[in-house]
């Protein structure tokens, strides 16, 4: 009973923090303050201050986490709504997601190598642009550590989403298609939800890119790891 109450409290804490930060974000409209980042920070501060270990936080957190799978499945819905557009531009999308996946993995491999990063760490962050469950599986298959893969994925997701508006301005990327593909294939589901802020087209582009990138990276990952990190 007490445990259930505890779990409930943790869920409440998460949702409350998130809603508060979402409101703040809506009011200030400042892309550095994306709710995921600010509420993560706030929750960590609260947990540390109250000396609650992560494991007991996850008693509640795992319930929220368990909705993540169905939510990813639900991305099929915007895809379906844009199916005509997808059919027409299939080659464009596949080609660009392949470019994105390739650039993403090769660049992180080369940078990690030039930094002399630990070998198993480099392998773990190789699939950083892929949605978490895939990244864990890929890193594991490559001989990296799944837990480190999550860290890489989170950094790519949070900071990619945060910086994307500035990057788009810098490089002059204005089309919804370009923005959607870039966000989906570099910052997976977090980028996809950022793309939803632009318009429906960017949103579905991003969710297609995320899906395709997940599939391609699980095939491409071993090859790049073998070529660049062995």
């Amino acid at each position, binding site marked *: 009973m007490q445990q259930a109450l505890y779990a409930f409290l943790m869920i409440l804490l998460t949702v409350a923090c998130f809603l508060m930060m979402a409101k703040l974000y809506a009011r200030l409209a400042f892309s550095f303050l994306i709710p995921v980042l600010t509420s993560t920070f706030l929750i960590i501060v609260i947990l540390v201050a109250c000396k609650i270990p992560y494991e007991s936080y996850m008693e509640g957190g795992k319930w929220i986490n368990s*909705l993540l799978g169905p939510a990813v499945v639900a991305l099929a*819905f915007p895809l379906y709504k844009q199916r005509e557009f997808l059919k027409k531009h299939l080659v464009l999308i596949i080609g660009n997601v392949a470019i*994105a996946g390739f650039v993403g993995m090769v660049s992180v491999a080369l940078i990690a190598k030039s930094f002399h990063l630990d070998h198993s760490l480099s392998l773990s962050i190789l699939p950083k642009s892929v949605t978490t469950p895939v990244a864990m599986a890929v890193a594991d298959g490559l001989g990296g550590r799944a837990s480190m893969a999550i860290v890489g994925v*989170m950094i790519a997701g949070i900071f990619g989403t945060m910086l994307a508006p500035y990057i788009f301005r810098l490089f002059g990327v204005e089309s919804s298609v370009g923005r959607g593909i870039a966000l989906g294939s570099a910052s997976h589901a977090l980028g996809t939800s950022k793309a939803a802020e632009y318009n429906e087209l960017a949103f579905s582009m991003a969710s297609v890119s995320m899906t395709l990138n997940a599939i391609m990276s699980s095939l491409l990952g071993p090859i790049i790891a073998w070529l660049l990190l062995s």
Partner: protein
Amino acid sequence: MFSYIGTVIQNFFHLIIPGSIIGLILLFLCLCLKVVPVQLIDQGAGFLLSILTLLFVPMTVGIMKYPFLLSWQGLLLFAAVLVSTILTIGISGLSSQFFEKSAEKRKEDQKCNKRYTHSS
């Protein structure tokens, strides 16, 4: 529900692609083939997608388990991922935009050509 089916399929075939992605593809196919009516998932999917970022929070809080990130290696790792992500977003955004525009241009050219052949 589709997520569950996806996971079952994943376990069955020992695939590296996770259940949720398989579920996504399955649901998409079912919608296209009209096996599942759109109205059935409209509300549920809309709701889940509207809280998508909230669902990530517990996982991102997991970063607190890695005080290692404050070390030198952690900083390097952070920098590597960050730079690579910026490159990926910039390059893929540009290339998508470029190819999209050139595809549109080609279509316009084709239209023009047709007009010419008609007039001649």
